[in-house]
Structures are given as C-alpha cells and as structure tokens.
C-alpha cells in the first residue's frame, strides 16, 4: 500500500451530474446530481438514487467540474443567430396540399 497522495483527504466527494435515458428511443435527460468519490461509484449511486422505480435503461454521469455551460448573458449571441434560419424548419416550405407522406 502506498501513502495517500496529497489532497486525498479533502472534505467532500466531488459532484457528478446525472443523465438518465428513460426508455429506448429517448435521449438522456439531466435528472440531478450526486456526490461520489469516482465515476464507478457515481454510476452506482445514480442507479440507487435516480432509478429506484425503473425510471431508466441507461445512465450517464459527468463530473460537474467538467461541464462547460453557456452563460445566460451570452444567450443572444449563442442562440439568436439561429432564429432567422427559418429555412431549417419544415414549415418553411410550401408544398401542394395533395402531396402525401411529407
């Protein structure tokens, strides 16, 4: 056994964000967070904390520190430019009413 490396006795376990896929065909959705010493334990704890009632078929855990988030103050430059690209949406296109399967 080697001695514990420095910083090992910090007071609390790191925070992990938990994402659960509710059922096949759905995306993973953020459900909350939990504390765990490492990824393996985080996954295990996520199962017990967030899927006790079969709420999921797959779980992701991500260290909260590793999440880079857009900031609300940047919202305009991040999301508004997509606002005028209306041609990305199917409703932009006029098609004759009697065409099926569109």
């Amino acid at each position, binding site marked *: 056994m080697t001695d514990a*490396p420095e910083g*090992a006795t910090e007071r609390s376990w790191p925070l992990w964000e938990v994402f659960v896929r509710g059922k096949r065909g759905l995306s993973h959705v953020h459900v*909350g967070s939990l504390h765990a010493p490492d990824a393996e334990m985080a996954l295990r704890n996520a199962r017990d904390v967030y899927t006790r009632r079969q709420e999921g078929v797959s779980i992701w855990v991500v260290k909260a520190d590793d999440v880079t988030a857009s900031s609300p103050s940047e919202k305009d430059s991040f999301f508004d430019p997509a606002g005028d690209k209306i041609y990305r949406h199917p409703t932009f296109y006029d098609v004759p009413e009697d065409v099926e399967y569109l």
Partner: protein
Amino acid sequence: MYGNDVIDPNEPLNAAETGAYDAAAAHEDQREAIGSDFDALIAADQRIEPRDAMPDTYRETLIRQIAQHAHSEIIGMQPEGNWITRAPSLRRKAILIAKVQDEAGHGLYLYSAAETLGVDRQELLDRLHDGKQKYSSIFNYPTLTWADCGAIGWLVDGAAIMNQVPLCRCSYGPYARAMIRVCKEESFHQRQGFEILWTLMRGTEAQQAMAQDAADRWWWPALAMFGPPDTGEAAKGGHTEQSMAWGIKRFSNDDLRQKFVDMMVPQAEKLGIVLPDPHLRWNEERGHYDFGEIDWDEFWQVLRGDGPCNAERIEHRRRAHDEGAWVREAANAYAAKQTIRENEKESAA
C-alpha cells in the same frame, strides 16, 4: 364507489393525487418573449435557472429554504427508520425500507437543487450538525408504537405533500423540478400510512387503540407543520409576503392548513379515527371545517430545541456522519491514487 370497507384506489387521498399536482407540474415557457431580466421573469411567472442573474437575497432565501427542506427529509428518515427492524410483517418491513429510502432520495434531490445555487452539500450538512440550520420540528416527536408509522405516513407525509405540491411551480427551476419528483413519490408514502391505520382500525381492540393513540399524538404537530399563522394581523413582518412575491411560496400557511384539514377530516371518518379536536366541525357558511387553536407556545418550544427528540435526532445524524469520515476519506484517497496511476500509464504509453 366501493362501499365503506375498502380503500377506493381511484379516489385521491392526498394533494399529489389531485389536479393541483398536474397544474403545478405543467409549465409554459415564455422566456423567448420575456428575456432574462429577473423581475420580468418573476412577474410573468417564469422559471429562474441556476446561471441567471438573481438578487442575493433571493439566492440566500432559497438556499436556506431548500437546505431546511433537505435536512427535514434526511432527519425525517429517523423516526420511521427505527421501526424497520421491528415492522410486524415482512410486507410492512419492505414498504418501510422503501419509504425511508425514498426520504433519503428526497434529501439528495434537494441538496442537489441547493448546490446549483453555489453551496456545497457538506457546508449545508455542517450547518445542520452545528444546529445553525433547522429542519421540520415534526421530527422532534418520538415514534412510540407501530401505529406511529401509520400516523406519520397519513398525516405527516399528507401535510408535507400539501405543502410541496405548490412548490412544483416554485420560481426556481431546479427546486421546482426536484419537487415534481418528490411529490410523485410522496403519494405512496401517504397511502401506505393510511393503509397501516386502516388495517389497525379493522384489527383487534388493542390495535384500534394503538391507531387512535397515534392519531391523537400526531394530529396537532401535523397542523403545526404549515407554520405559524400568516394571514390578517399575523402576516405583518413575516417572510410570507416576500416569498410570495418571489414565487417561492404560493399559498399562505393558513390556506394550506385549511385545505389539509378539509381533506383529512373525511379520511379520519372513513378510518374510524376520532381527531382530537372538540372544535372540529363543518362550517356551512365558509364551506370549510372549523378547527381549534394550535398551541403555538409548544410549537416554538420544540422549534427552539426543547422538543422530546431534538438532541437525539442531531446526535444520531452527526454520529453516522462522523463514523463515516474514514470511509469517505478512503474513497477519496483511492480516487486520487487511481488518477495518478492512469496518468502514469498514459505518459508511459
């Protein structure tokens, strides 16, 4: 209707099973139109999200409220937790373990919501252990008999749900989402409590007496769970007004208490339990039940720390935490070693 001697599974027994829950859980996002100004969002009944700008007092109030709520869930594991080893049947034992486990889960959902506001769970636990932050006073009463597990589920979880359903539309997004999850799970808690009492009231004389005694002891503390009067004269100088304006409180304490009484009286009648209040009677004019005066002196005394179990609950919690310190440290040490090993492997490759 199923007649009088069975529980109708389709009949709502608590606030999480009424339209109020669905209404609270449904939410229409209009942020696109409103922008990100705090006051404008609040005025339009929109959700505030973690990285939004918000007044410090809003943040602090929320941290305190969510933390106290989380502490209540965690401390709330104890009164029933100490009956797990004594549950009188295996079915009851399984239900009780699952219930106490749920309360742990609720605590975790809520600490998780609090952490989005920039506090660490450990900090909050320290404040609980040091007595700097409170938890619901209801858990400072002892669970004397098995029937107390029934009374807690029926009355205490019932009152908690009544308090929590409106919080599903709390202005702070992570808190609201945690509450939606919590309320969904809570209704099982209230039902299993009702069922315990239902079974006891149809059992032996001793069992009936046990159920009645538990209801006698838990009724008034359950009513006090809604907090001190906050309407009319009593509202002046209280937190209610600001919290209402911020959308982190939706109804006054007195409103919720009245709703609770109105919901519980018919259920007590069904159970055959006599609620310990001689003033309890239907008021045709108001369309509500009238009920007697709560002993607020006793309430404040328990809140200040003079309840039968205050010291015991905190002591238990602190002991579990302290006894686990070496385990948590070991896991950290192992994780740190693993990181070093992985780095070494990578640099060697």
